[in-house]
Every structure is written in structure tokens, then in C-alpha cells.
């Protein structure tokens, strides 16, 4: 009777716990969605930045023409005259996801436009990502840690920065795919079920479709398998978790056109094959050990070691010769720049010039993961007590992601889920101790044996000390009671009772600590909301500034693209620096010479050379590319710092990397980059200077550049080969047209000039454009 009662109450508490955690998860999803809507509220529902515009254009094409045309699409409106094979060079996951969403919504009569679906894809998938974090952390440590980690991930600023509403980029769905793949891997590892292994391979396929960062997964999982083998944790479940994934995963990765045969030929995948072989060898060894007697096994070992070593060395020698024969040892440029952070700056200036590829500064860690930065070590300790396969995976994940985030600021995004998982574990364990102490004191000593029998062993002193700064969310108070119930039910099965130390703190300390943890959570929430609202919600295509007479809105970019689309022919080619390529093709619908894909360094270097050359040489280069219009971005009138003059040195470096007659020191005076009267003549004569500052002196009489904080050097000059056709309201975008060449060259003076020009040119053979 009593047993039935307790089992009934246990069922009730179990059910109550389930309902409560479901509600909490729903609220977490809603929060993850809503915190990313600041830019829609402050500006409008518009696509941000540069890369999302390309994805939006591809999605438009997909929804208009269908999957087969999209798969085989050759785009001739970009990289003129080369074109780009979109079907084979784009990661299709994001566009297919948004296209499917749009198709489903339209079929159930919710007529959302493609743009709306694209803008809101990222917040929706971030809600999914927080649920996936819950599942993953639940596999590692338990449901309480899962809820905490999910709540943390929903708000972490680093993830918000790349998945805000309007940021329609690969990472929006890729982070969800990453966490979900890891969850399925850990689930397979914990249960040993081939069903989850299949799901794992399919989730990995979705990840390969979505992002180039899938190489992180295909290297982290083999590393973890190797770690398990080396630390003596080999088990049949490990084999089932890993071996089918490698075979199925490689096949599925080879299906995606972007990856293709790289799945078996590049060094990024070799680790998985190597560990595949190693795990088979280990499995065979364990099997033979199982069926033989110990002394026979010793004989087998000596025999195999002597024969196997020879074979191994032979194979290794062949492999090393193969790999060493390629100059980059088989790695792609981007992966190599991750392993050797100085590689890009020496050899590939394009990769080095992207601001996202720079190493992060220390403050950016606090900005991006805030409080989690010092909760992570506590989480790592909590993972070791007790150490399981899943928690060793979590530790490996955090360590590798911390290294990579230190190399490139863009990879802080991969660190965010790991930090959330670790912090969730740390906070959950801490809260566990506090609430258990409170319950112990409040309920009294009569029920002690039952509760304490399920006690885990932890070194709480360290945890308490490191709890100065923790997080929690408002749901915490309700989760406390649920956790107490859940812990009592789940504890005996979850935790191994190594020691039976009683870990109970005084009542006042526990209450105070709970209050402090809640306060810390409040700080985290405030920071995250502030970061989402102020720092990461700028669409960067519309700028605002506050002054004494109200809010100014700078919509110059869209103004320029609209002008282009209304006032030029459909087939006109527009040249600009590669940053603006995607936006120009998407919004102005004109053919561009180079865009953000930066796959062809020589083509970009050609444009860079043209912008760094004097007017006539630049006109020649642009004319050879059939360019009609040139677009430059200029921020000197309003103080917009990301304009082309500030980027100009990169143009020189990239151009100079391919065409040696462009030398960077020619543009610097005593190593300093200046555009005032002390600037070098090469600088004052180059096309970029002229196009940026043409007629600039007419604005305020002295040509004061608000970004460089100085008056410009050459104020009054004419353009002979270009004519200005449009300048936006705040002079931020300036469009010039190439003047057609003269029909005939008049007069003797002109002929002699050109003759002396040719004789000079024939001696200087280095410039290929003359």
C-alpha cells in the first residue's frame, strides 16, 4: 500500500516534471525567437549585410524556377566574363530549407513572401538550436543541466550576432545542424542503437549541406573516438557510433556538389579515415582477446606486432609521400589558415583582409559569451565527476573550440554552444547542491537516509567559490522544485556512488548563494538583451545616427542600387570592390565583375589594380572588361568609416600580389597612409582617390574629410575618362560612367604626346595593360 502510494506520487511528480520542462522549453524557444527581432522593430524587415543578399537571390531563383534548375544553375550576371557555377559552389542547405519553408507555408495558404521567410529563418532555427542544446546536454549530464544550457544558448550574444532576424546566412541553420548532429552522436554512443547512428549520418548530411564548418565535426568526432580508445574506454557502442557514420557520412558528403570528391581526397577528411582504420584494428584486437586464452593472446600479439609494424610503415610511407607532394599538404587555404594563423597573412591576402578572419581581442570574449567565460572551467570540472564518454566529448569540444575561436573571431560562434553546455552543467550542479542543502535543512533529519543515499560526490568547495558569477533565468524558481523531484528519482540511476560524502551547506549560505546566482543570471540577461538590441541588430544597409535634431537615417545604399536598376540597361556591367558584389546583383540586378565569393584572386586583383592605377590605365582595364559603370563608397562627408578609401590599401596589396607594377610603398608617405597634401603623387593620381573626392571641395569649400580628419590633398581636378552620373544624398555611394573613347585624336600636340607615350611604354614592358 505504502509502496503503491509512493510509486503513484512518484509518477505524479514525474508527470509534473515533464509538463514543467516542456513548458520551460517552449518559453525558451519563444525567447530565442523574440530576442532576435530587435532589428525588425528598430529598422524594418530587411536582409542585412552582404552575404545574405546572395543567399536571398539564390532563394528567389529557387522558388521561381524549381530545384532542378537551381541545381544546374550557371550564373552569368556575376564574375563577368567568367560567370559562376552556382549549383556547384554554394552550400545548398540554407536555401533549400528556406525554399521548403516557403513552399509549405504557401501550400497551407499562408502567403508569406520569400523575403519574409528568409528574414525569419534564422530566429526560427535558433529556437530549434536551443532545443537541440537541451537534448545534447540532457545526454551528457541530465535534464536540469539541459534546461539551463538551452536557456543560455537562446540568449548568448555570440550566436545572436550571426542569427538575428535578417541575417540570412549559412550559420543560421548550420549551428542547429551542428548541435543536433552532436546530440545524435552522443545518443548513439550512450545507447548503442544503429537507428540513432542512421539518424546521425542524416543529420551530418544536413550539416554538410549547410556550412563549410562541417569539417569541424568530421575532425572532432574522430578525435573523440581516438581519445576514448586511448583512455581505455573502447566499447562496442563506440564502434556502432563511429564506423557507420564514417561510411555513410563520406558518401553523403560526396553527394553535395560543393564537396564532391573532396570528401575523400582532401586532408580535412583524412583524420576520419585514419581513425576508421584504427578502430577496426582495436575492435579486432578486443575480439581476438575475447576468444583466446591469455598466453595464446600474448603469442598472437608478438606475432602481429612484428608483421604488422612492417606493413604499417609501408602504408604510412606511401601516404606521406602522397600528401607531401602537394604544396599545401592537401589542406585547403582556409583550413590551413586555421591551423597556422600566420599562413593567410603571408600567402593569401584576401583571406587575411576579411575582418571576420582576424583573431579576437580579449574584450570580445566578454562581449560575446559574457558570464559563461568563467563558468566554463567549473563546467569542465563538473564533467570529470564522473567522467563518461559523453562528458569527455563535451570537454574535447570546448577545448578545441576555444583554440579555434582564438584564431578567428568568426569562430566564436562555434564556441558559443560549447560554452553554454559547460556553463549549464556547472550551474545545474551548483544549484543542485544549494537546493539539496536547503531541502536538507528544511525537511529535517528524518528523511535524510533516503535523500543522502542518492547523493553524488562533488567537491563543492571549489564550485561554491567559482560561483561568484553565474547565470540563471526567471524560470529558475519553478525549475528548482522540478529539479528536486527529478533528482530524487533520477539520481540513483544517473550517478555512480563512488563515495558517500555528505555535502550539505548551512541554510543561510545556501539561500544567499541561490539569491546571488539569480542576481548573476539577471546580469547575464541584461547584457544579452543589450547586446542584441544595440550591438548586433544593425542591418548595415541602413544606417542611423542621433544628433541634436533627431534621428538621421542613411539609406544611401539602397538609393544607389535603385538608381542603378532604374537608369541603366539590363546588360550593363558595374565594377566595384568585391564587398558590394552580392548587394549589387541582388538589389540592382546588374552584372558585376567581382563579388563576395572571392574565388578568383586574379580577377579581384585586376579590379584592385584598376582602382589603384591612374585614370587612363584604369579606363583601359575597365574597358577591356566591358564595364560601363564604376561604383565607389565614400564616407568622408558623413563620417562613415567603412568606405573604400579606408579599404584602399587592401586593394593595393591584393592587386600588387598579382601585378607587380603596383607597389604598396608608392602609396605611403614614410610608411603612413595619407590622403592630405602630404600624400604621394601616386596616391593623389589613382582612380580611387579621384572617384572618391571628385567635386568634394564643393560641399564645404575646403574638402574636409570627416573620416580621415584632414583636408584632402588634391582639391580641384577634372575627370577625363569618367563622368559622374549619380551621387547619393549623403555622398556615400558615387557612381561613374566610363566615357567612350574619342572618335579621332585631334592635333599634332596630342599625337606627339601619344607618340612619346608609346616610346615610354615600349621600354616599360612590365605593365600588361598597356
Amino acid at each position, binding site marked *: 500500500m505504502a509502496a503503491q502510494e509512493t510509486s503513484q506520487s512518484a509518477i505524479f511528480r514525474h508527470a509534473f516534471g515533464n509538463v514543467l520542462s516542456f513548458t520551460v522549453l517552449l518559453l525558451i524557444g519563444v525567447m530565442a525567437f523574440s530576442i532576435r527581432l530587435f532589428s525588425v522593430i528598430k529598422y524594418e524587415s530587411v536582409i542585412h549585410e552582404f552575404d545574405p543578399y546572395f543567399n536571398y537571390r539564390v532563394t528567389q531563383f529557387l522558388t521561381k524556377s524549381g530545384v532542378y534548375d537551381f541545381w544546374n544553375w550557371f550564373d552569368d550576371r556575376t564574375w563577368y566574363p567568367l560567370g559562376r557555377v552556382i549549383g556547384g559552389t554554394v552550400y545548398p542547405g540554407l536555401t533549400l530549407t528556406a525554399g521548403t519553408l516557403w513552399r509549405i507555408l504557401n501550400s497551407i495558404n499562408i502567403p508569406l513572401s520569400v523575403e519574409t521567410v528568409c528574414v525569419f529563418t534564422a530566429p526560427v532555427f535558433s529556437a530549434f538550436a536551443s532545443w537541440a542544446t537541451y537534448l545534447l546536454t540532457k545526454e551528457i549530464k541530465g535534464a536540469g543541466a539541459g534546461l539551463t544550457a538551452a536557456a543560455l544558448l537562446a540568449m548568448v550574444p555570440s550566436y545572436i550576432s550571426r542569427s538575428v532576424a535578417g541575417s540570412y546566412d549559412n550559420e543560421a541553420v548550420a549551428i542547429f545542424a551542428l548541435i543536433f548532429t552532436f546530440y545524435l552522436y552522443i545518443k548513439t554512443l550512450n545507447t*548503442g542503437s544503429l*537507428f540513432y547512428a542512421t539518424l546521425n*549520418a542524416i543529420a551530418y548530411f544536413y550539416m554538410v549541406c549547410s556550412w563549410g564548418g562541417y569539417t569541424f565535426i568530421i575532425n572532432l568526432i574522430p578525435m573523440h573516438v581516438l581519445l576514448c580508445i586511448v583512455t581505455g574506454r573502447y*566499447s562496442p557502442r563506440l*564502434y556502432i557510433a563511429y*564506423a557507420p557514420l564514417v561510411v555513410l557520412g563520406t558518401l553523403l558528403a560526396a553527394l553535395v556538389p560543393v564537396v564532391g570528391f573532396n570528401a575523400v581526397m582532401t586532408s580535412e577528411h583524412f583524420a576520419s579515415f585514419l581513425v576508421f582504420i584504427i578502430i577496426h584494428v582495436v575492435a579486432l584486437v578486443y575480439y581476438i582477446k575475447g*576468444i583466446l586464452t591469455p598466453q595464446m593472446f600474448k603469442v598472437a600479439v608478438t606475432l602481429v606486432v612484428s608483421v604488422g609494424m612492417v606493413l604499417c610503415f609501408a602504408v604510412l610511407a606511401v601516404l606521406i609521400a602522397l600528401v607531401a607532394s602537394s604544396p599545401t599538404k592537401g589542406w585547403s587555404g582556409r583550413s590551413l589558415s586555421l591551423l597556422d594563423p600566420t599562413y593567410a597573412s603571408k600567402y593569401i591576402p584576401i583571406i587575411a583582409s576579411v575582418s571576420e578572419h582576424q583573431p579576437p581581442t580579449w574584450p570580445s570574449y566578454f562581449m560575446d559569451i559574457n558570464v559563461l567565460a568563467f563558468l566554463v572551467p567549473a563546467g569542465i570540472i563538473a564533467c570529470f565527476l564522473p567522467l563518461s564518454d559523453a562528458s569527455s566529448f563535451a570537454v574535447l569540444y570546448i577545448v578545441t573550440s576555444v583554440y579555434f575561436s582564438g584564431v578567428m573571431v568568426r569562430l566564436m560562434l562555434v564556441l558559443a554552444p560549447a560554452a553554454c553546455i559547460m556553463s549549464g552543467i556547472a550551474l545545474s550542479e551548483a544549484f543542485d547542491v544549494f537546493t539539496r542543502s536547503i531541502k536538507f535543512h528544511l525537511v529535517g533529519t528524518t528523511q535524510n537516509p533516503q535523500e543522502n543515499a542518492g547523493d553524488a560526490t562533488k567537491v563543492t568547495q571549489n564550485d561554491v567559490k567559482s560561483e561568484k558569477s553565474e547565470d540563471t533565468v526567471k524560470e529558475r524558481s519553478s525549475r528548482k522544485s522540478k529539479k528536486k523531484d527529478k533528482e530524487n528519482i533520477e539520481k540513483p540511476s544517473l550517478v555512480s556512488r563512488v563515495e558517500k560524502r555528505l555535502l550539505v551547506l548551512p541554510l543561510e549560505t545556501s539561500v544567499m548563494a541561490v539569491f546571488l546566482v539569480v542576481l548573476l543570471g539577471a546580469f547575464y540577461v541584461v547584457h544579452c538583451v543589450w547586446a542584441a538590441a544595440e550591438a548586433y541588430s544593425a542591418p548595415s544597409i541602413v544606417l542611423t545616427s542621433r544628433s541634436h535634431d533627431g534621428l538621421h537615417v542613411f539609406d544611401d545604399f539602397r538609393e544607389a542600387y535603385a538608381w542603378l536598376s532604374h537608369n541603366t540597361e539590363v546588360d550593363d556591367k558595374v565594377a566595384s570592390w568585391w564587398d558590394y558584389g552580392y548587394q549589387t546583383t541582388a538589389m540592382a540586378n546588374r552584372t558585376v565583375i567581382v563579388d563576395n565569393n572571392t574565388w578568383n584572386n586574379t580577377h579581384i586583383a585586376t579590379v584592385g589594380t584598376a582602382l589603384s592605377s591612374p585614370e587612363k590605365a584604369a579606363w583601359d582595364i575597365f574597358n577591356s572588361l566591358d564595364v560601363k559603370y564604376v561604383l565607389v563608397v565614400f564616407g568622408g562627408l558623413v563620417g562613415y568609416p567603412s568606405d573604400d578609401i579606408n579599404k584602399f590599401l587592401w586593394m593595393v596589396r591584393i592587386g600588387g600580389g598579382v601585378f607587380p607594377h603596383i607597389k604598396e610603398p608608392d602609396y605611403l608617405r614614410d610608411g603612413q597612409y595619407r590622403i592630405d597634401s602630404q600624400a604621394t603623387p601616386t596616391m593623389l593620381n589613382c582612380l580611387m582617390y579621384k572617384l572618391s573626392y571628385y567635386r568634394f571641395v564643393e560641399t564645404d569649400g575646403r574638402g574636409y574629410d570627416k573620416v580621415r580628419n584632414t583636408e584632402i590633398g588634391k582639391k580641384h581636378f577634372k575627370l577625363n575618362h569618367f563622368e559622374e552620373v549619380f551621387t547619393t544624398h549623403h555622398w556615400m555611394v558615387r557612381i561613374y560612367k566610363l566615357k567612350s573613347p574619342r572618335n579621332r585624336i585631334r592635333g599634332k600636340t596630342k599625337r606627339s604626346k601619344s607618340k612619346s607615350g608609346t616610346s615610354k611604354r615600349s621600354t616599360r614592358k612590365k605593365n600588361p595593360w598597356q
Partner: protein
Amino acid sequence: MGKSATTRDVHALFHSLRSAYAATANHLKIIDLYIFFAIATALIQVAYMAIVGSFPFNSFLSGVLSCVGTAVLAVSLRIQVNKDNKEFKDLPPERAFADFVLCNLVLHLVIMNFLG
């Protein structure tokens, strides 16, 4: 002297291996035969590629990987069905076989697509 000791040890080793293997259950031996067949097919395909060249590389890859894949999946099935494995004692063999069939289905679907 040492040589005969080594050869004696090798003989004893093979003898004990053979006797231990003969003691395994019949259904496991069938799975082992299937694995052996799959690996042999993969080796034949690699030898053929070495002779003829790897021109439709996707076909070669899908052929070899399908053999290796079925071998791996059969090994997983064997692990799950083997009664000596304590970790899987409450997994009914029908469930293991169903998972095996599902995984093979996915594998061969991908192979069909990739074969070209």
C-alpha cells in the same frame, strides 16, 4: 631453436584460433560469411580500378563504399546480436535486425543516387 619455437607457437596460435572460432554460434558465422563476401567484393573492385583506371570516380567510390558500408553494418549487427555482449542483452535481436535493414536502406539509397 628459436625458429622452431616460434613456428610451434604460431601453429598453436592458429589451432586455438580455429577451435575458438568453431565454437561460435551458427547465426554469427553466417554474418561473418556475409562480411567476408562484402570485403572480398570491395577488394575485387579496387583491383579492377587499379587495372582499368578510376574514370567515373563516383561510380568507383560508391561501389567500394557500398561494400565497406554493408560490411560495417553487418559487424554492428553481429555486435548487437551476439549473446556474449553484456551491454546489449536487453536488445531484442529483431530490433537489431530492423535497425540493420533501415541503415542498409539509407546506405543503398545514397549509393543509387551517387552511382551516376
